[in-house]
């Protein structure tokens, strides 16, 4: 067994009796069943179960989350869009597109998180939520609160607010607050103004300027020194608040660490620290500062959490590590799958070759999509994801799509359409068969027939046709005439079906009084062997009214044929397998019928011969 980086997670099943009883399990389409069994290797099988419950274990529970649902839906749209822009663009425009996709994902995540505000979530997300809440929403709320109050500077959170603003680098707003303080307090007015000035003059790199990094660096050094001087001179000595703010702006680590509570986490600490001590930090140096920030912030009191590991890996630009950490830490595949896909499109991913899925992107997408199939409607999103997995997507889709419960006709049609669009003929056949079977059981023969036709299932079509014919024999009429009348080329699917269609046509012709056509059709049904022998008696009986008509319908030739068929049929007796009593009774009826037929045929023959003879005569 390969060495793992971490122990596999253990899922405990709440059970009362933990003596050595076996657990049995079974896979469902998207979940697993577990229960205690009676097997007990140590002692004789006990009759009383320790734990009488069966548990259903799901691994993709997030699929059922209401809030995440929106995330899944919207990210699905972005995902599909991303797959489609693939080969069209190159160079700059492509890069711009990819960045836009990234931004789309980010805004969708952001929207989701803001929605989560109202609802309690899992521990990892709480971290992120705290971040959003504190550093965006809460600060703004606080700002509004304080400014809106009668006497802002007397607000209990005033200094807290100013500090946060400085920590976040929102110096303009901080200055605004300070000016309020300056206005109302003559003693600190001077200091406030000086600090405010420092805030105003802090050099920042703004996009679009022609300023080089070196120039910025130089300016910043000057500014930094000026701040330092003020501190040394004791300009802010009489106001601990202002002094602390100045220290923060100098990037003093101790001062920053004092604000642990307001910073809330080490990456905020990192950002602030960099802002005020290494504003021109280069990406490659980022991880160094990240690591030290993490260490300083935690101060040996606590150990890094999974999210921390993810961020650290991100700061090191170690993509594979990020993906790996995410896979371990997060409860579903959503994030990793989409991230990896995007990175793959940016060609940033050197794919590992995996046995299953042939590369990491596909592997993760497969996992994510499989999870979606556990949901009664999100499975439709999963289809698209499988579509974009070139190696195993199709077969995975085939396996999953057959397991979707076809609870309504609409759902069945949806599933079928998806299969037909992708030429998944086996699945179409299988699903249609299932639906046809259900229809037959519920005696909806017309529905069953149309499903078997759609499935191109000759055997089943034969079965259903037989049922139709049997029904006709019993009741003397057809059900679902519309369907049978409009079979068209589908009639050719099976001999029995063709017979059914033609037989119905015979009845129609008869109804339209097109007796000659009806007659020849009837005859051809027997002579062409399309009609099953068991049905011949019925057909011949159908011929009776035609034989008894005033005018001669069957020609002599045709009558000879009919006679031959009748003799064929009668010589083929006795029918085996039937109980004697039944047979005798049937024989009686049969004999009468046969006699009647013989008589009718003979009479017709006579008339036909005469008729044909006389035509020539006159």
């Amino acid at each position, binding site marked *: 067994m390969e060495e793992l980086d971490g122990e*596999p997670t253990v899922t405990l099943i709440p059970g009362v009796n933990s003596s050595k009883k076996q657990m049995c399990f079974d*896979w469902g389409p998207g979940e697993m069943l577990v229960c205690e069994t009676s097997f007990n290797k140590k002692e004789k099988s006990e009759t009383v179960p320790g734990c009488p419950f069966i548990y259903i274990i799901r691994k993709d529970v997030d699929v059922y989350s209401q809030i995440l649902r929106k995330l899944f839906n919207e990210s699905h749209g972005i995902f599909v869009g991303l797959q489609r822009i693939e080969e069209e663009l190159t160079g700059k425009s492509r890069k711009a597109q990819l960045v836009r996709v990234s931004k789309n994902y980010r805004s969708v995540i952001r929207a989701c998180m803001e929605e989560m505000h109202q609802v309690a979530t899992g521990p990892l997300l709480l971290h992120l939520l705290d971040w959003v809440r504190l550093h965006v929403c809460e600060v703004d709320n606080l700002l509004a609160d304080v400014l809106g109050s009668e006497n802002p500077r007397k607000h209990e959170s005033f200094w807290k607010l100013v500090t946060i603003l400085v920590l976040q680098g929102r110096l303009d707003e901080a200055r605004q607050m300070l000016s309020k303080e300056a206005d109302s307090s003559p003693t600190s007015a001077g200091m406030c103004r000086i600090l405010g000035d420092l805030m105003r003059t802090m050099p920042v790199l703004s996009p679009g300027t022609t300023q080089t990094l070196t120039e910025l660096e130089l300016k910043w050094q000057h500014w930094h020194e000026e701040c330092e001087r003020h501190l040394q001179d004791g300009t802010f000595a009489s106001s601990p608040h202002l002094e602390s703010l100045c220290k923060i702006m100098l990037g003093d680590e101790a001062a920053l660490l004092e604000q642990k509570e307001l910073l809330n986490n080490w990456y905020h600490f990192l950002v602030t620290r960099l802002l005020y001590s290494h504003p021109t930090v280069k990406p490659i140096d980022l991880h160094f500062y990240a690591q030290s920030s993490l260490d300083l912030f935690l101060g040996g009191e606590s150990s890094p959490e999974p999210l921390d590991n993810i961020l650290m890996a991100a700061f090191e630009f170690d993509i594979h590590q990020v993906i790996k950490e995410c896979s371990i830490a997060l409860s579903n595949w959503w994030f990793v799958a989409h991230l990896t896909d995007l990175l793959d499109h940016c060609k940033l991913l050197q794919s590992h070759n995996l046995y*299953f899925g042939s590369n990491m992107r596909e592997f993760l997408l497969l996992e994510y999509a499989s999870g979606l199939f556990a949901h009664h409607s999100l499975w439709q999103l999963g289809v698209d994801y499988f579509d974009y997995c070139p190696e195993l997507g199709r077969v995975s889709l085939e396996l999953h799509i057959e397991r979707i419960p076809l609870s309504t006709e609409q759902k069945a049609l949806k599933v079928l359409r998806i299969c037909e669009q992708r030429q998944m003929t086996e699945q179409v056949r299988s699903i249609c068969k299932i639906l046809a079977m259900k229809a037959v059981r519920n005696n909806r023969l017309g529905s069953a027939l149309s499903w078997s036709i759609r499935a191109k299932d000759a055997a089943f079509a034969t079965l259903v046709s037989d049922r139709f014919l049997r029904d006709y024999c019993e009741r003397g009429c057809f059900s679902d005439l519309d369907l049978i009348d409009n079979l068209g080329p589908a009639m050719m699917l099976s001999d029995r079906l063709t017979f059914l269609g033609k037989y119905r046509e015979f009845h129609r012709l008869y109804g339209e009084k097109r007796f000659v056509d009806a007659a020849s059709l009837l005859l051809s049904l027997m002579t062409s062997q399309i009609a099953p022998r068991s049905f011949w008696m019925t057909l011949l009986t159908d011929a009776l009214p035609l034989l008894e008509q005033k005018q001669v319908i069957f020609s002599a030739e045709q009558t000879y044929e009919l006679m031959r068929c009748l003799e064929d049929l009668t010589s083929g007796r006795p029918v085996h397998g039937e109980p004697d009593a039944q047979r005798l009774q049937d024989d009686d009826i049969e004999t009468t019928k046969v006699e009647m037929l013989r008589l009718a045929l003979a009479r017709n023959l006579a008339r036909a011969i005469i008729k044909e003879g006389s035509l020539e005569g006159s």
Partner: protein
Amino acid sequence: MHDAQMDYYGTRLATCSSDRSVKIFDVRNGGQILIADLRGHEGPVWQVAWAHPMYGNILASCSYDRKVIIWKEENGTWEKTHEHTGHDSSVNSVCWAPHDYGLILACGSSDGAISLLTYTGEGQWEVKKINNAHTIGCNAVSWAPAVVPGSLIDQPSGQKPNYIKKFASGGCDNLVKLWKEEEDGQWKEEQKLEAHSDWVRDVAWAPSIGLPTSTIASCSQDGRVFIWTCDDASGNTWSPKLLHKFNDVVWHVSWSITANILAVSGGDNKVTLWKESVDGQWVCISDVNKGQGSVSTSVTEGQQNEQ
């Protein structure tokens, strides 16, 4: 309770137990409604198996009483539709063949024989028996997924493609055997897979994922689970890989529907989940353990043993 099985869609659950009953529950939307309590066996029922939904709602059960019973739902009620009594000893395992082959049930028994019941229509079942499949007894049967040979050639519609039917069995002779149906309809032993040193308790043939390889998992009284793979299409060379040696008997192995996870239940009271990693090694990805503690699972009330 000895076994529980979900149906094809995960909407129904069948359970069987020592109290000789087979129970069926509707488990949609986390509910648990007892639909049927099927009585007919005269001994503990070892295993149940759902047939493919295209044949309707059909369930097979096998028992210590040497019988295999096939139950069918007709007009909303469950009834016994067939009883097979061709074995001299406890029937330990039943498994339905891929639906493409028709309605065929394989049964493995302690009398060492394997019987194959094929539905031929009108309530009739045809029986083929493989005697002495495993000396002492057969504990498990598992069908290979249907693979259409020469599937590149179009079959005329209405004709059944010529499937090569295969299944695997595990027995008290410590062997896993692979069986193949010959052209004359007789079943022949195609392969003997030797690696276990004690009774083979379960075999599971992995679903096909479109690759030319075939994979079988087997577990045994000796605590070992092996993964057997065969790379060539003809199915001749099988190589075993030891998944893990557990400290106790391993009772059951089963593949998830896309064959990417293997679940194993063993005597150490755990169900472990395994996945193949980058370099072909099998890695344990989760432990499902019995014990105290709370977990986010939904609970379905099972049955109480009544004896």
